[in-house]
């Protein structure tokens, strides 16, 4: 009869237990907001593992400012709503900076909370809207879509002189955002887009769209989207006898692309900033070595490294300024120039965009490696 009472007891117990989190600051608390389960579990776990690796290394050397680094991970599952809850959770745990999330949508859903709490945020999200709010807490560790779109359009029209361009996206915000930026840039340069369509991530069967593309006789197919779909698109394209060149955008950069496309990966192209194994920096080589030693695998993609760079910059700022006051840290971060990162020199524009795009075009070789074909290396 008194089931209501029972329900309430249950409620109160749980909340009373969870209400008691300590706020003492004998450690430096860093949050990780990443999709460690769900669709992007792979990338999310990569970010989490990378962050923990760095923290472990620094702690082993005695930490920063004499304090140990403590990592809190919150799984946003790649959904905006969970991301909003994660943001509140991490702020509540007393973190001074958050690494992540992997997707632009989740980063954006959490942004305002970090800003209001004065918590620094660094994400690999490439969506242009991320830097449009003017939050001083925000630092993008990758390069925005607009930079990639300008590069891509210029390369297609002025360098390769493609005449018939097909653009494929999926339904994600990253993909449609980049896709429409590329489209706009191509049109600006007077390019001819013969097909534009969307595929559903995870559907695996893209032959209908590719057959439709075939009927338009394009000389290039550009896919702004993720590696899973890219690999299948490429292999199905070749099986259908569609001879156009195939280009993937930055999120196609993942070893899984080659596994999916198989022998058809050869001769396809990728536009991205340099990928882990192609990074010429010692920092990168050492990081990859340590990562492999600890986790017995490669980081899933360049996105792990970009996020790590964001984290390293945060820690560097703490070391240099000797404070954990986020306002001062943010001011300092805006002044750094060519801080050596795993993914290249780091500096930030006032709006939080990482400046100095380093986009390149790669061609996949028969052995699965990538060769830079543009800009031409001397």
């Amino acid at each position, binding site marked *: 009869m008194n089931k209501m009472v029972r329900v*309430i007891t249950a*409620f109160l117990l749980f*909340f009373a237990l969870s209400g008691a989190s300590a706020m003492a600051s004998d450690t430096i608390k860093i949050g990780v907001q990443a999709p460690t389960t769900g669709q992007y579990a792979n990338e999310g776990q990569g970010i989490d593992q990378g962050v923990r690796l760095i923290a472990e290394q620094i702690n082993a050397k005695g930490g920063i400012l004499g304090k140990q680094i403590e990592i809190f991970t919150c*799984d946003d599952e790649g959904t905006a709503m969970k991301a*909003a809850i994660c943001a509140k959770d991490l702020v509540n745990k007393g973190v001074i900076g958050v690494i992540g999330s992997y997707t632009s949508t989740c980063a954006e*859903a959490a942004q305002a909370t970090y800003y209001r709490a004065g918590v620094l945020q660094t994400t690999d999200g490439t969506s242009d*809207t991320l830097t449009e709010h003017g939050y001083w807490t925000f630092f993008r560790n990758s390069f925005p879509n607009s930079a990639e779109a300008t590069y891509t359009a210029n390369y297609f029209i002025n360098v390769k002189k493609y005449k018939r361009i097909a653009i494929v996206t999926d339904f994600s*915000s990253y993909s449609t955002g980049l896709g429409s930026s590329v489209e706009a840039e191509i049109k600006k340069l007077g390019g001819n887009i013969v097909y534009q369509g969307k595929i559903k991530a995870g559907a695996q069967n893209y032959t209908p769209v590719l057959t439709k593309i075939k009927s338009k006789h394009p000389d290039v197919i550009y896919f702004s989207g993720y590696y899973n779909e890219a690999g299948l698109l490429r292999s199905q394209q070749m099986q259908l006898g569609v001879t156009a060149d195939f280009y993937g955008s930055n999120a196609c950069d993942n070893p899984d692309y080659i596994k999916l496309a198989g022998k058809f990966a050869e001769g396809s192209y990728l536009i991205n900033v340099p990928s882990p194994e192609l990074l010429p920096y010692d920092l990168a080589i050492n990081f990859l070595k340590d990562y492999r030693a600890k986790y017995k695998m490669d980081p899933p993609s360049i996105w792990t490294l970009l996020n790590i760079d964001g984290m390293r910059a945060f820690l560097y700022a703490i070391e240099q300024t000797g404070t954990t006051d986020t306002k001062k840290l943010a001011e300092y971060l805006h002044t750094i120039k060519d801080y050596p990162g795993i993914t290249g020199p780091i500096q930030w524009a006032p709006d939080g965009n990482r400046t100095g795009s380093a986009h390149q075009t790669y061609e996949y070789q028969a052995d699965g490696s990538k060769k830079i074909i543009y800009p031409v290396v001397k």
Partner: protein
Amino acid sequence: MKKSPNKKIGYTVFILAMLLFPALANPKWLAIGSTFLIFSVVGLSEDIILGKGGMFNMGHALFFGIGAYTAAIANHTFGIPILYAIPLAILIPALCGIILAGPIIHLRGDYLLVATIGFNIVFLQLVENDIFGITGGPNGIFGLDTPTFLGFDLASPTAIYYLGVAVLLLTFYVMANLDKSKAGRALHYLRLDDLAANSIGINTRGYKIFAFGLGAGIAGLAGVLLAIQYSAVSPEAFNFMQSVLFFSIVLVGGSSLPGILMGTFVMFVLPEIFRDFATWRYFIFGFAMILAMILRPEGIFPARFGKIPDYFKKG
């Protein structure tokens, strides 16, 4: 129709606990508490259709989403303060519920289920493709105005929480009225035996559509709260998996007020509590769902009948 003293104490304690909760909770749990209130309202609205009316609606996130998007679009595109958009965000989902239910209401059980899933998926594609350029595409709409009411700023998490409490209490009131009215009874009758209900003079088709309209309207109201809480709407909050969640809330909890609250607690709050189990939690959670249904096939607190007026009782 007097409530038993225990029940009265139960409700009083529950309402007190709800009111005092923000004083105990940290910001994260306050946010979860607010979402719990919102999902409870959606659960109750799904209960009208699925629990009382017995119609297998697995697309309820659709109405929740239409409400949220109506408020967000009214605010973002047309600059209407979000609280003033509430009537619209109830009416539009309710109308959609009525219009969409009309042609499919004659479908039996699982065919209705798949048709409602279909509506949900069509809706999601509409908003993801940024139809009419007002839904913000796959990202959704961010940065809605914070609501003000009679000069009070309702932006704080505590204010939003209490707004949730108010809406939940309002929903309780509607549910209580429904239970004690001919419309509410008609839903029970038609669930238990459509043909007998129809033969005794109940326009079963009409009441089924009524259930969809009412359920959709209440879900729409909850959608506004969600939009306020996150200052944002985004498509994935209203996808088919979300509909599955609402469907499960009603069935796991049982078709009653405490049942829906318990269902929402089990289906939404428990996974949050067990976040530390990370990758294991949904694995265990799945087993918990199976176990819950085996132990309580009609839900944790199923609907109870025999609520008859006092003057029937002898003595």
